[in-house]
């Protein structure tokens, strides 16, 4: 490819985003699907290829940047959010994507994660949530359900898991969404939405680790179960799901529950909760569906709000300062305060 000119002119394709490195995930790992969808979506976003930067921590998922033919940074465990913040603040032109695991972002990296969200730097988080530590061979993670038996918890884990969307909302996230490795079309759509969001987008992706946690998401991916267990959110639409589109979410007081609609007649579409992406309370209620067996898992955009963006405010201050004090003059700066001359 010709160097030193942007790639805008050229129509990019999926192959433009595949690096020459052999992909080394276990055959059948959910990570493959996510890689494929990202490689499909990137060429469509109208961003010059050289402006993409993919940044990760450590974990199976965090090998992701090596497989993308973009600028990439495979960081250290838990710090992708902080590295990405530095990249974006230094050059707001770049399209920055964070790829992280449930251990990487919720365990060791939990603090950077919540701080990134509150700062609302305009970067995109893709959390590959397999509810296990893959790369270190199968310890429980902060998203593993209570009682999980793993190598490090032979009698079962003792801690209540984090609920990623709830944690994100608590940290003042401006965009919270979820998708599933086995829903490629949906994933593509939501990756596009993540990109479009102005501010930090947080996308949780349920990802099957077939070596250490196979089947964790079967309820949401098995052909015959998923329709009854997955609620696909659409802004402004009532919350309907089920193989026959005959179930919905009704709010009794503050308690969401599943009701049957249609034929049996007791409940109608009008009784259902209507999704409003901009309503923090609805998003909070939806976030609480996680880990509940009696409720479907919501996928799609749970929450989106407009909020000022860190690096833009920072650039504003720089412009403001130039207006106020003039463009930085090093000689003047060094000579500030009381000076005297020795001859």
């Amino acid at each position, binding site marked *: 490819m*010709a160097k030193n000119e942007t790639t805008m002119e050229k129509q990019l394709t999926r192959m433009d985003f595949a690096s020459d490195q052999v992909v080394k995930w276990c055959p059948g790992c959910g990570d493959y699907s996510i890689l494929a969808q990202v490689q499909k979506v990137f060429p469509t976003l109208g961003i010059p290829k050289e402006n993409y930067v993919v*940044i990760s921590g450590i974990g199976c998922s965090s090998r992701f940047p*090596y497989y993308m033919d973009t600028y*990439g940074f495979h960081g250290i465990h838990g710090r992708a959010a*902080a*590295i990405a913040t530095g990249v974006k603040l230094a050059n707001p032109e770049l399209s920055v994507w964070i790829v992280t695991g449930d251990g990487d972002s919720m365990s060791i990296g939990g603090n950077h994660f919540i701080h990134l969200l509150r700062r609302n730097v305009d970067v995109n988080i893709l959390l590959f949530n397999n509810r296990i530590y893959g790369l270190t061979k199968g310890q429980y993670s902060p998203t593993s359900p209570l009682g999980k038996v793993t190598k490090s918890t032979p009698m079962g884990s003792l801690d209540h898991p984090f609920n990623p969307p709830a944690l994100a909302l608590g940290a003042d996230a401006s965009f919270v969404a979820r998708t599933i490795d086995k829903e490629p079309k949906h994933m593509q759509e939501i990756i596009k939405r993540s990109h479009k969001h102005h501010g930090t987008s947080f996308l949780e992706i349920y990802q099957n680790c077939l070596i250490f946690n196979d089947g964790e998401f079967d309820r949401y991916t098995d052909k015959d179960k998923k329709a009854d267990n997955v609620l696909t959110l659409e802004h402004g639409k009532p919350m309907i799901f089920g193989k026959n589109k005959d179930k919905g979410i009704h709010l009794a007081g503050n308690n969401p529950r599943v009701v049957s609609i249609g034929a049996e007649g007791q409940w109608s579409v009008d009784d259902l909760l209507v999704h409003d992406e901009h309503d923090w309370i609805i998003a909070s209620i939806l976030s609480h569906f996680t880990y509940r067996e009696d409720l479907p898992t919501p996928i799609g955009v749970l929450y989106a709000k407009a909020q000022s963006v860190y690096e833009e405010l920072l650039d504003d201050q720089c412009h403001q*300062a130039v207006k106020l004090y003039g463009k930085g003059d090093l000689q003047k700066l060094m000579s500030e305060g009381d000076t005297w001359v020795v001859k």
Partner: protein
Amino acid sequence: MPKTLKHIDDVTIRFAGDSGDGMQLTGDRFTSATAIIGNDLSTLPDYPAEIRAPAGSLAGVSAFQLHFSSQEIFSPGDNPDVLVAMNPAALKVHLKELTRGGIIIVNTASFTAKNLKLAQYETNPLDDKSLRDYVVYPVDMSRLVAHACEDMGITTKTVERTKNMFALGVLYWMYNRPMDTTIKWLKQKFAKKPEIVEANTRALQAGFNYGSTNRIFTTNYKVDAAKLNPGTYRNISGNQATALGLVAASVRANLPLFYGSYPITPASDILHHLAGFRNFKVKTFQAEDEIAGITSAIGAAFAGSLAATGTSGPGVALKTEAMGLAVMTELPLVIVNVQRGGPATGLPTKTEQADLFQALYGRNGEAPIPVISARSPGDCFAAAFEAAQVALKYMTPVMVLTDGYVGNGSEPWIIPNVADLPEIKPNFFQGDEDEAFLPYKRNPDTLARDWVAPGTPGREHRIGGLEKEDGSGNVNYDPENHHKMVTLRDEKIKRVVEDIRPCRIIGEQEGDLLILTWGSTRGAARAALQKLLKEGKSVGHMHLRWLNPLPQDLGGILDKFEKILIPEINLGQLAQIIRARYLKEPHQLNLVRGRPFLTREIMDKVNELTG
């Protein structure tokens, strides 16, 4: 009564009072006025770890020492000639260091029974004979400022707060300093509170007048301007100088500066200064912790900025994993450590030199980085600038060691001409359009890898913390490649020696004893050297700025002296390095007390050794 004006060469003053008495500010103002007169000077602020310990308590005493002279000086002085004690606790804490026969100026109003008790005085030292060996000036400053501000209609509390200005005024008279810059400063600082400006100005003036008219003061002094190198000077603190050094490097490298940091004493001021330089497009980022401070900086370095992070020892501890990442990814990065007393939280507001080992060895794996130390407040500018030069030339993190004394202390500094500062050429990929870009291909001279920032078309590449294949930079687990890369990274840092000035010995070029120092200990050592030379001792002084790599000719220089003395504010870290490198046995002077060496302590040790 007629007053005598005496010419003297050299004075050390210590201002001491309660944390709320404004002693740091008073010291700063005196320093400014003294700088403008053209004296050489050196300062040593000393404040408690608590923001404001109980009024009148020993723990709450805050002090500021200033040494000024008509000669070139190197240290803030061993023992003060003058002690300004705003309360009994200040007197109690600092009296023992005052020169015998020295001057004590006290605010008598504060010598109440309660304060005396808090200071653990059984009897009032102003009344008993305990101060008979000193020249005591008891002044009821509180009453005098009340008098001066009588008709202003402001609160007693506000008036009482001006008594530090009164003390300053007395000293301005005593040492013949001009008051105008202080008044100008007051006007600026309190622009929105004219009554504060007025009250303080009156107090200052009152103090000055009190000195010139009151009978008890019989003598005042003149300290002539020092014969310093020609140039335009300002007074500068170490942290200020570090901030300016980084900005200067960014200007001369034509790169935006990114500073990711988390506040910590005594390094926070670097962040504060840099945060004020937005018009230079300096981007400061107060991170959630030190790890985010450095990793955000690594991100910014990847993105093509001149990136830096600053902290103190405990913060460096948290950065060590990420420093390894910067070593592996071979990105330019400046890491500043304003050392303080350790281990652990230690003595957060005190100085120390005990993080040298941490700088050199405090990482997992073989992760060598260059380390430079600043010898004085003004030298922080050059140290930060040079660190950035080396970081950008060799594509490596570089550690700058300063310390609490150098960071908070100040001295006159020649303002450099921007044009005289070397231009810095970052090691950006120079290949032409069609040349393949290999992220780990190296410059054959420096071994630096090429730098390409995201946003550059056609040069997409990935870096990270796993071992890299030589050249391609792809992840590689091959045993021989690992050995090669470990060796290459080591060799690259060794080559930095090319950029290090040869050693310069001050004093005797060979002889009985060489004082070898690094960092801020240089001041006391140079002061000691001057006196020892005058005494006819066969002594030289060699100061190390770079601790890694060590200058090429150091070995030869050590051979020229019978004995080597290494004074350090630690248990002998440089000494151990010298032992290991040159198989020589230096003598050590190790006093770890949270404060700089006294000149006398080094002299005594030299005398003992050359006895």
